[in-house]
């Protein structure tokens, strides 16, 4: 007896995807390619000793940031953890300011004060880039609370990794989100591993991590993160629930990272995961390859166009390296700015009392 394969849902025909113009589809494809090229380039220069600290690469997860953030309107806001480069580019930050930040330069998005884990662009509704696992989950709650308080019809997409679901701050946030009716959508980017510990070794759950939302009377869903159309179709439902009904959602998007937790994670190949596992994802679930096949079948994209997009992204990333290398480093005087709003703005309050204690 053979069991019939489940009929895949046709996410391409969901209204939110039907509304995409061919140009917009190619743009979304390009965004994913740009993220991958940016990350590949960053890896090269990280290994070349041009950057300090950690480097958490987004390669393999591109459809999550691009798919979800593509749904954002004027009053929708975004916040994530330390694997933040994909979200930064997806909200429209430039490669130059991002690369320069990792090079520790004045022209970086955070003036070289934040580094790889701490990209910010409030003008694009992007609130970081946060280094402590799940530390951003109450902040995402607060951004959404703020929207509701200020009477704006928007929501906050708060991204977190599968390792973050076991932090207390996340559970406190879920309870408050449900209790107060906060328009926040928690997006668990489940790449299967909290650093080197697999999901099964780190989390207790029934069917999946998002199901824990039931305990807080919160709606939840699971999404195949290799399919950008599915990401958009299901995330749209959650965002509308937030905007229109002031209700939170927990989404779990299954995805995969090709590289380690950070580049310093040397045991990601052959240590806690097998080369076969990585290869299987690349062959069958790579979000860029999957979307490329879909768009070629739709007649929206050609191989020639795809090649051009890749070359352009590679060139853009190379140019960002040049920009970063040629940019000035922060000065010693820069260490003492951006600590207090009042002193930066030279207000009368800032002139009263001693704020800093160097000598």
């Amino acid at each position, binding site marked *: 007896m053979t069991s019939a394969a489940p009929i895949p849902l046709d996410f391409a025909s969901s209204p939110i995807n039907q509304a995409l113009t061919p140009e917009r589809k190619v743009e979304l494809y390009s965004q994913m390619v740009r993220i991958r090229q940016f990350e590949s380039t960053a890896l090269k220069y990280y290994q070349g000793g041009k950057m300090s600290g950690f480097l958490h690469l987004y390669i393999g997860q591109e459809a999550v940031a691009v798919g979800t953030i593509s749904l954002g309107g004027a009053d929708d806001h975004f916040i994530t953890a330390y694997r933040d480069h994909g979200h930064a580019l997806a909200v429209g930050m430039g490669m130059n300011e991002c690369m320069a930040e990792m090079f520790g330069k004045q022209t970086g998005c955070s003036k070289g004060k934040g580094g790889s884990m701490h990209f910010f662009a409030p003008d694009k509704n992007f609130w970081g880039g946060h280094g402590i696992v799940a530390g951003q989950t109450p902040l995402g*709650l607060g951004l959404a609370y703020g929207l509701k308080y200020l009477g704006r019809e928007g929501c906050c997409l708060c991204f977190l990794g599968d390792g973050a679901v076991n932090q207390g701050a996340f559970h406190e946030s879920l309870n408050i989100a449900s209790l107060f009716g906060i328009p926040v959508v928690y997006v668990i980017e489940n790449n299967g591993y909290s650093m080197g510990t697999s999901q099964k070794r780190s989390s207790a759950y029934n069917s999946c991590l998002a199901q824990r939302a039931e305990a807080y009377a919160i709606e939840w869903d699971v999404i195949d993160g290799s399919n950008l159309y599915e990401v958009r179709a299901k995330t749209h439902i959650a965002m509308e629930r937030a905007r229109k009904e002031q209700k939170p959602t927990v989404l779990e998007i299954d995805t995969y990272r090709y590289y380690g937790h950070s580049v310093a994670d040397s045991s990601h190949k052959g240590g806690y995961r097998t080369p076969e596992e990585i290869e299987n994802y690349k062959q069958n679930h790579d979000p860029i390859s999957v979307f490329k096949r879909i768009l070629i079948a739709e007649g929206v994209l050609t191989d020639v166009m795809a090649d051009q997009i890749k070359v352009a992204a590679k060139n853009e990333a190379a140019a960002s390296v040049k920009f970063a290398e040629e940019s000035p480093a922060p000065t010693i005087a820069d260490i003492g700015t951006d600590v207090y709003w*009042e002193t930066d703005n030279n207000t009368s309050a800032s002139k009263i009392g001693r704020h800093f204690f160097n000598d």
Partner: protein
Amino acid sequence: MSRILTYREALREGLDEELARDSNVVLMGEEVAQYNGAYKVTEGLWKKWGDKRVVDTPISEAGFIGMGIGASMLGVRPVMELMFWSFHSVAFDQLVSNAACVRYMSGGLCNCPIVVRGPANGGTGVGATHSHIPEGLFAAFPGLKVCVPATPADAKGLIKAAIRDNDPVYVMENTLLYGTTGEVPDPADGDHIVPLGVADLKREGTDVSLIAHGRSVIQALAAAEILQSEHGINAEVLDLRSIRPIDQDAILKTVMKTNKVVLVDESKPFGGVSAMVAMLIQDHAFDYLDAPIKRVCSLDAPAIYSPHIEHEQLPNPRRIVEKVLTIA
């Protein structure tokens, strides 16, 4: 015309005035609304301002303080009550990694205009977990501001300054002071604001300087009376009021005047506020000192419960007098 108010009423009046002044000010915390506040600081404010402006939260300090920080980045101005500052530890990541650092890590792109307030004191028989005194701890984080009012007038003036400040300000109150009374300027005479960073000379003297903050100011004033009446020593009492920013000029001025100083600080001795003040004095007024800088801190152990002995662990007039007599 000033009126006599309790410290609690003065705080409440300050909160009420700021709720009226700015529609983005929102009070939140455990029991602050319908219960009227665990220590009744916010009594009546929920009834007056309603659910939107005065918000009861679950017992989730990391959750609601983080929520306030996130909302502040969008322009809301949350004033969050910790039922006890001792509970800071369950929200520590939010208080120091997010509130203190988000402006810096974003290169100045994010602002965090929050206030976190509540009592931070020993002396009430609630044991070590509820008796932490963390003003020195938080003042050690660049990006944060800390103030500690000792009187009703300062409580009102500082809470208003804290709410209007565009940086995170942690206001540390005192359950043993909530019921104390003092003169507070009448609102009809204009806004009563005490700027952060301005110390206040609570008693003029000539022989020794007692530098204190919070309830230690009250203890120092009592000690000064004993020193005067029983020992003929005329002590000056400087109330720091604000820990960061700190009024270094006022500290140096009184030291240069009396040439002897005893720091009175309810913190524990290691790295407390008084340790920093001692550093400033030796660095900038070394030649004016006629004696070593002395300190009266809480005795160096977790807060003891026993009501028979608890007051002896804290700075009190007897301990202050004894310490002054070693140098004056």
